[in-house]
């Protein structure tokens, strides 16, 4: 299952990158590749252990620095927590949902972290919870307001592990960054062409 996801991911990234650099619509004519098996990516495919990083390292990582150095690679990668445990509404709503502070504290009431870096970050969470202050995450993916993206239909069509198709291999990201520009319409369309699904303007724009 997971292997499939990674394969799909690489193709999608490839197509996306082509659009970004060439800005040519001809990519739409290479749909067959999606289905073809792809080699696994070279990023430590066998290791499930997330790298040891301190908060100081976050500045050197891709993506915007977040108020808490939340490690998707630890949560979703190393501990294999399902995406939908936190992004709970992705299979039924257009919005994927972000976890409430209570969801975080469900675990972190008990789990205090294994080393000083982790402990420091988890303390930020606990302090915020105590002060009833939500953590204001920096948003990575913002779809333009004139387009509508129903997450649930994509999950329905592509399975619960399809997140990476657009969001990249988040399980391996210590700090989340934008892999695909979701506001590049070609990125959407290439997939819709490949899968022979609706390409009507008003499917998304209304």
């Amino acid at each position: 299952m997971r292997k499939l996801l990674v394969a799909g991911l690489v193709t999608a990234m490839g197509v996306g990158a082509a659009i970004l650099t060439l800005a040519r619509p001809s990519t739409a004519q290479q749909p067959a590749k999606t289905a073809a098996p792809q080699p696994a990516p070279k990023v430590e495919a066998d290791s499930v252990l997330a790298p040891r990083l301190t908060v100081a390292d976050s500045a050197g990582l891709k993506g915007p620095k977040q108020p808490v150095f939340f490690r998707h690679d630890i949560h979703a990668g190393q501990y294999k927590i399902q995406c939908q445990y936190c992004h709970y509404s992705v299979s039924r709503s257009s919005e994927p949902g972000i976890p409430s502070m209570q969801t975080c504290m469900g675990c972190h009431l008990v789990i205090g972290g294994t080393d000083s870096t982790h402990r420091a970050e988890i303390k930020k969470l606990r302090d915020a919870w105590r002060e009833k202050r939500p953590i204001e995450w920096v948003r990575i993916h913002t779809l333009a307001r004139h387009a509508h993206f129903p997450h649930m239909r994509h999950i329905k069509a592509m399975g619960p592990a399809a997140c990476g198709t657009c969001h990249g291999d988040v399980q391996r990201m210590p700090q989340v960054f934008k892999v695909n520009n979701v506001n590049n319409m070609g990125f959407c369309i290439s997939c819709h062409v490949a899968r022979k699904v609706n390409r009507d303007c008003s499917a998304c724009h209304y």
Partner: protein
Amino acid sequence: MADEHRSDPVDRRRFLKVLGVAGAGTAALAGCSTDRIEKLVPYLVQSEDEVPGIATWYASTCTECPTGCGLHVRTREGRAVKLEGNPDHPINAGTLCARGQAALQGLYNPGRIRFPMGRNAAGDIAEILPLEGVNRLADAIRSANGKVAVVSGAGRGTFDDLLGRWVTTLGGRLVRYQAFDHEPVRLANQMVFGLSEVPAHDFAKAKYILSFGADFLETWGSPIENQRGFAKSHGFDGQTMAKAVYVGPRMSLTGMNADQWIAVKPGSEASLALGLASALAGSRNVDAGSARTVLGEYTVDRVATDTGVSAEVIRKLAEELGRATPSLVVAGGVGGQHAGAIDLCAAVNILNHVLGNVGQTVHFGRGVPSSDGYGALADLIGSMDRGEIGVLIVHEANPVFTVPKSSKLADAIRKVPFKVSTSMFMDETTVLADLIVPNLHALERWDDLRPRANVRGLIQPVMQPVFSGLNTGDLLLQVARKLGGTVGAGFTAPTFEAELKTAWGDFGRSRGAADADTFWRQSLAKGGVYDDAPASPAVSVAATAAQVSGAVAPLGGDGEFVFTPYPSSMYYDGRGANRPWLLENPDPVTKITWQTWIEINPEKAREMNIREGEILRLSTPQGAIEAPVYLYPGIRPDTLAMPIGLGHTAFGDYAKGRGVNPLDLLGAEAGKGFLSYVSVKVKAEKTNGYKKLAKTEGNPRELGRHITEAMPVAHAAKGMTVEESLKADGEAEEASNTKLEVDALQGFRTAQVEQRKYGAYAEDFPQWGMSIDLAKCTGCSACVTACYAENNIPHVGEEYVLRGREMSWMRIERYYEGGENGEPFSARVIPMLCQHCDNAPCESVCPVYASYHTADGLNGQVYNRCVGTRYCSNNCPYKVRYFNWSAYAKLAFPEPLNLQLNPDVTVRARGVMEKCTFCIQRIRSAQNQARLEDRPLKDGDVVTACAQACPSGAIVFGNMKDPESRVVKAKQDRRGYHVLEEINVRPAVTYLAKVFDRAEA
């Protein structure tokens, strides 16, 4: 998700710029639509009820007028975004009027008072803490020593019970006040039947409807319930329809929907009603009781002299009334509220009795709440003036605006040492207050209403309060507790919510509910408890009925014109005047927005050499006002009419200083316990002023364009098409197509069917279509506000309406018929929206493919493609495309109005064309849901906002490919036609011709 809501408009220039950047391959960090960093703010604790992106619905009850309709409130991400009717509710059955829907703009109104306020040391009004408000009120009551008066406009319910108990405990005085009370109706029922109550009316059952100035479709009684019933009886059912006749000096919206208008002399209506009763009593085996002797005096000839209506018309009316059983006669609106109003209502009671309608279409014992009448308020004004009141509390009422200035109410209030208002808005009464503790909006608080004996509606908070306020129920409880002693002992509930739950617990027990908590939850989920209506008690004519008189009501003043102010369809008694949706929604009769006008008969205007927009000065001994005139053929030449509702001197930025208040011309004598609205003759003088009327109509007449089709009931019953009906009337020559045209149409149709075999069109997509039954549509304009609410349509304001830039995707066109050369005057209405033509002229001229045809039969409009050439609008024969001329998104939704915006619909930027989408967001949402459930779409899954709101059920939407769908069935009706069929654009909207039952001229 507490993500930034979608109200933030995409600035067009920035949008294009960023698009260009992204195309060159540089990814902006924080997304495409904006270069700001956006934050994702999580909940601390996620509400169980709420999933981001999915609407949560709550059942509640509407408090915008005394009717008490049931609501379903759509909330998204913790804020109310749309109000719809509760389908289970017996009064409105899932529909909602424009005023009810605009409650949202009350909730999010920028003019709302943001915190409790009181006088500071300098005597200015300034913010205080809620607790301070409680303390101050308690202190004032203590020192007032029982001299407490409360004016409350709250409906009957637990709050009203609590208030009554509270005032009694304090030894004070409670005046239940509604501007448009039913006092004459109540007093007349007392006179004729010995029943001091207001009856309920069943329009659905009536086979003949006769109204004496009661505007039951817009403001009188229970408008939505009336309209639902009216559509059922008066709407053509395939065989027959009830005839409706309107009697009054001015043709209102109700009059426009009637088949016949009798322009009776103002004040003489009672004579006509008695004349009809007299003519019918002879042929019917009904005992008119003590009224028998009175009836004898009203011969047809006498009535004809009294009323100015020809004897022939009266005889015919009596004959028709006598044939239809049951029928329904109503009276008692503001239009008939003159010195003789009780007599008029009493005469109508006798007429209903003679016709055997009481118990059939007129139901007593239904517990329709009535207020204390103007007499009680007039008494209170006297007391205040004499310094007998120490504390005055005004709750959910604005009497300083709704009572004529000549009452000197404002001066009397100033004499009260301590004035308290619980209003949410800084209205004319509240500006006089020493203490303001704003009530929470009905969508933010616990409450309930009992609009009928068998209907109890619950009101629940659907969201966090927008501004700081205090449920007035809690205010009463806290003040009582603060006062302590015997007063405090009587009010032990810790909160009003607890009080409400206790009351419902008792109610549940009285019905034998096993568990109070379960009963509460079930009632809350359903929106309340709805029982069958109780049986009507048998009534008989009381001895006092002999007092009825048909004497023509006297009028004061020495002017030339009878002055008839009437409640506005949109602003009601003025409470709607701070809601832009209602200001921009044109008056259903005159199509004027944002303004006050004077209606005058065109012939009279010609005589006086007045043109539309010229400012007239009207004066009476009580005052003078100036307003532009509107030439209206539906008014008697000796009468002038003006809508009530504008002319506020306070009440927020939208209302303040807009228009004039016709009540300024009236005297304020309480007379027999009610306010006479038709009581003076005004003097009209020309001024040199001119004000262009902000009308949304082009031409008031159809000029042979055949936009609204209508046929007599005799033709409709024979199953005639519009063309056949016109032919039968000898008018078909120009209306029907020539053979050449028919061939061309057929050829086009074949070509189009052929085209459907290619591309995406070949796939199995639905074809969306709509039918609108003009026999049911009354022009009430509920659909217009529903469209504004659903589709984030900005209001543009008076100035832009004057330039013809209104954005109303759905509009009601109104066309006058006749009224010239002695022909009877009538009017027709037609809702006009994008027709989603199969052969759309707009699509072929768009240079950027922004306007195009979707595979599911919609005329798509892609905002992000649109560059604003406006070619499409120029080429649209229906003129239903609206160009976004200004930064309306910013102008129309100032904080916190923007919280109402529907997150499923793009807020359009300046410079794009927009139009009706057939509520595509609802289509897509239904399709998404069906896909999640692995099922095909069913008929009824998609209901457009207009169809949902329509109280008449005139609009049906659905898939034209599904032979079982309601829309296909409706479109098969023989009355179906397309507007401007001859230009061959193949619209997806089918209209069913209006059917009328008009006396052969």
